[in-house]
């Protein structure tokens, strides 16, 4: 991966072209700033609405200047059991992430190290699971959960999310382990290390970035999902995403309350992605090199 961090652009000609280069950089940066503004406006709107007093919310034409208030946040806590929603979201996304890693990391290792020609077939099978639209499995799964009595529980959502997440983790870890030279493990095995030790103590510590990236994507996927959760949870087990949708239209909810609630559902993930930016980028670009 070290190659990707290097600037592969050819070195620029010496100083006489320097001003031209500086102008070019300036043009590029101006374009980027404009694009950034296009991207930040809707996000900032979402944040700003949450602090808008109700009287300004539906004023037509829309007002740009208002006195910030925490009214919407108080209202959110009146209408919703925010902590319970947050708890559901956390349990569902962490539960699915942990389960996916437990299943996917060893499987990815096994597929990468296996000499069998079926290994690559199985690896592609995991990749193919990604293309399955959730609607094709959700209905039979819904009936299955109804029959075994898990409908309305966190487990139902965790189990479904884990299929897609586990397939993703397996493929991702397969590519990480495959790019890892076998020498270290072989050396450890010759020195009398067990097979388990070669996996757990030798190979695993070197792919920690891959594990972090996988975990990040699993959490993001489950946290952001609402289709699965909408049909498989009930009032007690529903996560934030479902509440956001339920809030919309059915109750006397303003955009301000919605914006306040959206704070809880978007900010944790946004911060996670910003702080773990390096791993986030690794996760997305894994297939490129």
């Amino acid at each position, binding site marked *: 991966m070290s190659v990707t961090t290097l600037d*592969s652009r050819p070195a620029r000609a010496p100083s006489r072209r320097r001003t031209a280069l500086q102008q070019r950089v300036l043009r590029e940066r101006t374009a980027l700033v404009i694009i950034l503004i296009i991207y930040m406006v809707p996000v900032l709107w979402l944040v700003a609405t949450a602090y808008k007093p109700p009287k300004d919310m539906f004023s037509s034409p829309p007002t740009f200047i208002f006195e910030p208030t925490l009214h919407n946040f108080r209202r959110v806590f009146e209408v919703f059991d925010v902590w319970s929603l947050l708890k559901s979201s956390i349990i569902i996304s962490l539960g699915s992430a942990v389960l996916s890693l437990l299943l996917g990391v060893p499987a990815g290792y096994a597929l990468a190290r296996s000499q069998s020609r079926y290994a690559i077939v199985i690896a592609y099978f995991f990749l193919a699971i990604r293309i399955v639209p959730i609607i094709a499995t959700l209905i039979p799964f819904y009936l299955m959960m109804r029959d075994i009595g898990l409908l309305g529980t966190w487990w139902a959502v965790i189990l479904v999310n884990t299929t897609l997440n586990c397939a993703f983790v397996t493929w991702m870890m397969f590519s990480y382990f495959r790019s890892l030279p076998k020498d270290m493990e072989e050396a450890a095995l010759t020195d009398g290390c067990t097979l388990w030790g070669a996996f757990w103590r030798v190979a695993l510590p070197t792919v920690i970035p891959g594990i972090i990236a996988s975990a990040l994507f699993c959490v993001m996927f489950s946290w952001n999902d609402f289709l699965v959760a909408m049909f498989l949870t009930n009032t007690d087990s529903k996560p934030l995403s479902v509440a956001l949708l339920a809030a919309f239209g059915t109750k006397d909810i303003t955009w301000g309350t919605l914006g306040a609630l*959206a704070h809880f559902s978007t900010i944790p993930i946004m911060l996670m992605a910003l702080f773990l930016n390096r791993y986030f980028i690794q996760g997305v670009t894994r297939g490129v090199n």
Partner: protein
Amino acid sequence: MTSISAGTASVPRRRSGLRFTDRRKLFLFCLAVPAVAYVIAIAVYPLAQGIVYSFYDYNLLRRGGRMTFVGLENYRELLTDATGQRALINTFAFTFGAVVFEFVLGLGLALLLWRDSRFNRIALAFLLIPVTITPLVVGLIFRALLAVDYGYIGYYLAEWGITDPRGLFAGTSTALPTLIFIDIWEWTPLVALILLAGLKSLPGDILEAALADGATPAQRFRLVILPLLLPTVFLALVLRMMDAFRVFDSIFVTTGGGPADATNSMMVYGVKQGLQFFNIGYASAIGNVTILCIAFMAAAFALLIRRADVRANET
């Protein structure tokens, strides 16, 4: 992570009769089995059940949920019924529009971000924020911004007579393009990120050689950069194609498939039929057709990649 060690404790570590290579095979097999078994039980099995249901007239709310075998009737209905055809066409149009624009804009953005500087790294980090926001919330944001009476964008668009006075989502001809626009807004940075990784892994010496040969920037891009970038381009296109074809969240929260089915997608249609009307047989057929379409497009892309690879190796 302790349950892994518990699960594999049964692996024979020092079983004397087994050769090392066999022990290793067994060990790797035991590591892979839980994930494979899990995916088969929770994804492949329901998938197979869905295929079976799709050949039945099966509605949970009618006739006590009894199943009647109808052969290909569900598929025939989907492909001949006006709503079903509309959903298929909409989904293809959405996918095509979104993927093409996301690719062109994403490539431009990637080229802008190519220079390795602190500024560009920070810009990239911020540009990736939309990718992390729930598609649900993105849909709601744009629904509010485009509202004609109080939305910051919608109000002025309608006021200045640029759009229908009832708003972009209310017009049958503007609703789908608006949804495509939202998708472009949310996912272009992701495409840019993938293409950027491709650009940064290009061999520097070839680029320098092109520069030394006096190629203009346009020539360099067309003759050197683009051919080398092709595998990454295909990867980005395939990933976005698969996700765009399954569009659900943004449509569900903005138009719900309306007005007059103008934005009904396969997923929206399938969810309505299956989980609101409990028309299990028909909804399963919708799901299976969706899988077939995606698989077909992915296969077409894979063939294109292979052909492009062969051509690149020949030259």
